[in-house]
């Protein structure tokens, strides 16, 4: 979550042997693939380790306390607990890589099926939130940098500080009281009002899209009224993050001589900012936005709980409260994989889009 990490250059893992005949792109590709493989292995090992820390006996969790010794032994063997730890880890790895997360005891379904069901709700929420974050955060950041030290800059600073300090579960609850209970501007918890549920067929799982596909305008409106508040609350942190970094990127550009040169040439202030400064920070911004999107997943855990939003975060919390490790580990692993992938995509985008890295 910290801001400073973003600016630090990534370290290269190993240097290409000078004399070798391996072409640079192949070396880069190998480096990336091996680093991703090692990280993935690490993610699996960490989740495996967390699963083993459990104070609950996994056999008893399945067969119950009253089971006799032979049933216990049978399940014990079935779970592979009699094998050495590294064999267990290999089994675990195989299961996870095939997407076999086992059954979620608290829903009675396969975890993979559950995840397919809940993920679109989170994607929808996070996408709206990041859109708000981008369209509010970037202009604030740019203005704060251009009018440095002015009231706009102070306002941006306050927004940034609040975004990092407000507990989203609290702002969510207060938002519900104010905008739902008192003012009645938005829909309440959940994705829809009760009487709109199940009108629209599930195609993508993204309710807004599904409602449009079905041509159900009323359902769409209702869904919008339900998503506005949680998405805004969720986006607050992203606004803080994006505006703060936009400001510092922009300041770094504005102090450079090419900006002055462009101004001396007679270009207008905003033309210079738009065509020169902003273009130079665009790639940096893209990676920041991707990172903010990943961080939103973390915020979603709390926001979804507050708004009874039937997404991934709420699923994880329900799994946690039910002590259902299959569900929890699958969620944690998937978030880890999403995080790693987003970081990787950012890295690649940087290489491809920014000619300065070549």
């Amino acid at each position, binding site marked *: *979550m*910290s801001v*400073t*990490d973003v600016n630090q250059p990534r370290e290269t893992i190993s240097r290409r042997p000078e004399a070798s005949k391996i072409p640079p792109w192949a070396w880069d590709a190998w480096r990336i693939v091996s680093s991703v493989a*090692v*990280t993935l292995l*690490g*993610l699996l*090992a*960490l*989740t495996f380790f*967390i*699963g083993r*820390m*459990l*104070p609950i006996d996994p056999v008893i969790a399945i067969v119950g306390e009253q089971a006799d010794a032979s049933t216990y032994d049978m399940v014990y063997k079935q779970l592979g607990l009699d094998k050495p730890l590294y064999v267990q880890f290999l089994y675990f790895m195989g299961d996870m890589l095939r997407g076999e997360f086992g059954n979620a005891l608290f829903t009675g379904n396969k975890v993979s099926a559950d995840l397919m069901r809940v993920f679109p709700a989170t994607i929808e929420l996070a996408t709206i939130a990041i859109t708000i974050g981008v369209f509010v955060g970037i202009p604030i950041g740019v203005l704060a940098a251009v009018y440095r030290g002015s009231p706009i800059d102070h306002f941006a*600073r306050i927004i940034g*500080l*609040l975004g*990092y*300090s*407000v*507990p989203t*579960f*609290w*702002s969510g*609850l*207060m938002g*519900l*009281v104010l905008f739902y*209970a008192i003012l009645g501007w938005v829909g309440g918890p959940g994705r829809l009002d009760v009487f709109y549920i199940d009108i629209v067929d599930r195609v993508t799982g993204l309710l807004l899209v599904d409602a449009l596909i079905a041509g159900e305008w009323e359902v769409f409106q209702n869904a919008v009224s339900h998503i506005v508040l949680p998405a805004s609350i969720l986006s607050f942190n992203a606004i803080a993050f994006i505006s703060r970094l936009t400001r*510092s990127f922009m300041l770094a550009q504005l102090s450079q001589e090419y900006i002055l040169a462009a101004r001396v040439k007679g270009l207008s202030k905003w033309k210079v900012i738009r065509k020169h400064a902003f273009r130079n920070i665009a790639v940096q911004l893209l990676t920041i936005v991707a990172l903010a999107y*990943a*961080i939103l*997943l*973390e915020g979603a*855990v*709390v926001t979804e*709980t*507050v708004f009874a939003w039937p997404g991934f975060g709420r699923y*994880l*919390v329900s*799994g*946690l*409260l039910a*002590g259902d*490790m299959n569900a*929890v*580990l699958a*969620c*944690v692993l998937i*978030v*880890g994989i999403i*995080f*790693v992938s987003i*970081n990787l995509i950012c890295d690649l985008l940087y290489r491809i889009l920014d000619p300065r890295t070549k």
Partner: protein
Amino acid sequence: MTTAIEPGKGGLRAYLTAEVSNSPTQASLQRLYFGCRRFAENPLAMIGLGILVVLLLVAIFAPLIAPFPMNEQNLGRRLLPPSGAHWFGTDELGRDIFSRVVYGSRITLQITLLVASIAAPIGLLVGTVSGYFGGWTDTVLMRITDIFLSFPGLILALAFVAALGPGIRNAVIAIALTVWPPIARLARAETLTVRSSDYIAAIRAQGAPAWRIVVKHVMPMCLSSVIIRITLNMAGIILTAAALGFLGLGAQPPMPEWGAMLSTGRQYLLGSWFLAAAPGIAILVVSLGFNLFGDGLRDVLDPRDE
């Protein structure tokens, strides 16, 4: 430059502002003095400091400040809105919310300090060992650090709490396990700059064992930046702890932990909003305090940003 204008006080000021320092002690005291002065010139940082001082005082003198004992129930006076007798109202069991928020400051402070005092040594150890020895040790340790970093903090903390079981002690351990990796990175970077310096070479030439060099000569050099870093992380620690409490996985009722109080307040939200309002504002103010303080600290110690 020792023209003492006022005796006593002026002498000290002259000592601190002298252009030429006569001893290492004076030099470091001067640096501290100018650092404090720069910090004091930043109003936002001073507000942050003020909030933290108030938090500390409230936590220390909680029994004197709170008008009621934190768990005193009075079912005849439940869910009362804020009034002169109950500043923040009363909760579902008729307990005074103001008193509970006041006592809650102790829990928040304890959690933050405990997390910091667990995470900082782990990060320091991993980082310095990794940086000093390099090679395979470095690769393995930094890989492990990266893996911890590839989970968002709250999710990882949730996973550890799931494994360890809910409760405040386990919440502290879980949060600490998510806080150490950036500190290890930082300590490693510091170690790398220190490692090749002459004084380390001199100690090594005298035959000091590696562990002694790491513990006695490298770690102290990394300490200040680690402390600053953990201060910057405090707000995040508070928010994570409160989030765990809110989700029912951290501190458990009847403990007056702010996150857990919010969680109960949620059930009475529409009728009695003040149940959730007060502890939330407390979390907001304290984490804002840490953020302001940390920002100010960074500006003083690392003027690159400005």
